[in-house]
């Protein structure tokens, strides 16, 4: 009996492994996008796939995002399972018409006869010192588009598990990859990787009694840090990692908030019209009488993503989260 080593791995490595395993398991899985072949992607997530599976399974496309997603639609119509890479969040915008008008609607349009099992990988978010257009948080657009699943990992294990689940899904999945977590490391056993199924379950990353931080993707580590720091102020914070924005796990989130009676939603995306509004509203609808204070939001400002030298002021950090926790009307506490 061999003992399997649990070694530190980066999120990028786990994603690569998920793609490779999915391609090996199912010849219908095709990876496509800009620079995903020979180069292995600008974040190296597709590294080695073209070599192992050939250019026809991992294809450098012409430089045109609507064309990439549009041809992926046709490939999916014919029974393939395209995994599309959008090079950066902001460069997915040219593909929005294909996404909204076709990817999200084809199954419904055809009463289920023409599903589109497409996975759209979108590196998103800031904190990497990227210049303009390289740090957008675009999840609000995807959430507002019925017919899409929207998921985002915060851990190495989830990166693998969620990506396998996304590729296995018969529905289109927007798979948001937090750029600044690509090189984050976790102990992870690549020889016994787990898929995270079904898509749509949140997870409590840290239990606590005082209040719930509801978050996802790049903000999960920040919230965990905030929760540690909060102990000094006497708060025992629970941290819920949504993992899936669509479908939304009302059950797990509301169970937590009912327990703690207070909640702060934390994300990098702009606050106004961002995910936090939806989350705060639905939690309030469902948990109103358990709430000691309104659900607060800590989000990016309502501005275009700032240049790298100023991004630290924009990103929700530990202090801003704790400031919000402090405003949760503790006076009301008996």
């Amino acid at each position: 009996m061999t003992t399997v080593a649990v070694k530190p791995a980066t999120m990028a490595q786990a994603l690569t492994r998920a793609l490779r395993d999915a391609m090996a398991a199912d010849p219908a899985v095709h990876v496509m996008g800009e620079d995903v072949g020979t180069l292995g992607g600008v974040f190296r997530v597709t590294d080695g796939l073209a070599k192992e599976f050939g250019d026809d399974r991992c294809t450098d496309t012409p430089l045109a995002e609507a064309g990439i997603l549009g041809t992926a639609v046709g490939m999916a119509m014919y029974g393939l399972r395209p995994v599309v890479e959008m090079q950066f969040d902001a460069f997915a915008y040219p593909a929005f018409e294909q996404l909204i008008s076709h990817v999200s609607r084809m199954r419904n349009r055809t009463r289920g006869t023409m599903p589109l099992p497409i996975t759209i990988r979108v590196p998103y978010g800031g904190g990497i010192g990227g210049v303009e257009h390289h740090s957008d948080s675009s999840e609000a657009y995807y959430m507002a588009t019925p017919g899409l699943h929207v998921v985002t990992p915060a851990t190495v294990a989830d990166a693998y598990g969620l990506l396998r689940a996304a590729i296995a899904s018969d529905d289109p999945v927007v798979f948001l990859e937090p750029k600044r977590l690509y090189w984050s490391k976790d102990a992870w056993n690549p020889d016994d990787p787990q898929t995270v199924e079904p898509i749509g379950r949140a997870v409590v990353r840290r239990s606590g009694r005082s209040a719930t931080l509801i978050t996802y993707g790049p903000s999960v580590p920040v919230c965990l840090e905030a929760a540690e720091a909060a102990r000094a102020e006497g708060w025992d914070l629970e941290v819920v990692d949504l993992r899936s924005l669509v479908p939304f796990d009302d059950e797990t989130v509301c169970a937590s908030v009912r327990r703690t009676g207070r909640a702060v939603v934390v994300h990098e995306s702009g606050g106004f019209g961002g995910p936090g509004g939806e989350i705060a509203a639905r939690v309030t609808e469902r948990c109103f009488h358990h709430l000691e204070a309104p659900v607060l939001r800590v989000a990016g400002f309502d501005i275009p993503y700032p240049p790298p030298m100023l991004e630290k002021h924009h990103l929700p950090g530990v202090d801003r989260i704790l400031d919000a926790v402090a405003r949760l009307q503790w006076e009301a506490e008996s």
Partner: protein
Amino acid sequence: MTVMEQRGAYRPSPPPAWQPRTDPAPLLPDAAPYRVLGTEAAAKADPELLRRLYTQLVRGRRYNAQATALTKQGRLAVYPSSTGQEACEVAAALALQDRDWLFPSYRDTLAAVVRGVDPVQALTLLRGDWHTGYDPYAHRVAPLCTPLATQLPHAVGLAHAARLKGDDVVALALVGDGGTSEGDFHEALNFAAVWQAPVVFLVQNNGFAISVPLAKQTAAPSLAHKAVGYGMPGRLVDGNDAAAVHEVLADAVRHARAGGGPTLVEAVTYRMEAHTNADDDKRYRPDSEVEAWRDHDPIALLERELTERGLIDESGIVRAREDAEALAADLRARMNQDPVLDPRDLFAHVYAEPTPQLREQQDQLNAELQAEQEGTHR
């Protein structure tokens, strides 16, 4: 050999050793639209094919008239007629084999019908009970596509996928002159050429995008001239000459099937009716322009050829009309029945499994409907 290693790919080499990979000359269209009817080429055309085209043109014209009539009776929400463009619609459908795929736009219900889709199902979108009335896999006809040119990359992707799987499948995609201005047109043609995908693009240049004439849409010598910029052949054809359109498309389909890659075909035709029944074409074009095109009617052109060459007689013409009337009568009868709708369908196909949220919403609607039935709603 991967798809990337094929002919046609444009590789730079440092000047002065410049060598274009593709000779542009064969990619350029002829100066004038290709014609068969009334020319010497007609003699070589298969009489059986000409008769088939004729029957379908006559059916198609009648189908268009009937569908337009149904809008007046409130049985269709809207109808974009292909009257005047039947030669393109019919030839597109007939140029394909059964295993091939057709990618129609909103105006191309007729092509779908010629390919075998039940006319009632082809019109479902335009009647308004659902977005697509037919199973796309049954006749290999993609859903009618409304966002202009967005169906073109789908056709490319499907053809590419079929080829990767080793299947002998060609995709034919239809688009209008206006649609050629969209970015998706460009991206689709480029992907097709780089991948050497077995796909044929047919632009029905009917002179207008709603009210906007071609002169405001492009300054190109012809739309077919766009092909060379992608490294694929461009063909220009008289879109009212069913025999010519069929020949050019059949050639392009054969070429694609043989691994020769995509072709762009521009068929010059004319939209004889308003854009849809909701449009008022008097606002943007003189009657005289429409009238001038009547002399170049696709049915008349073909009928003249068939008659002159003794390939059809009066009884053949009558038979074609009767056949068309039967189609219209059947369509009328069935479209006059109210479709049976189930509002719960709203939630059934958004995802493979409804999300918990959709299940809640479905329950809400169910409760409302029940209350309505029981008369207990507000």
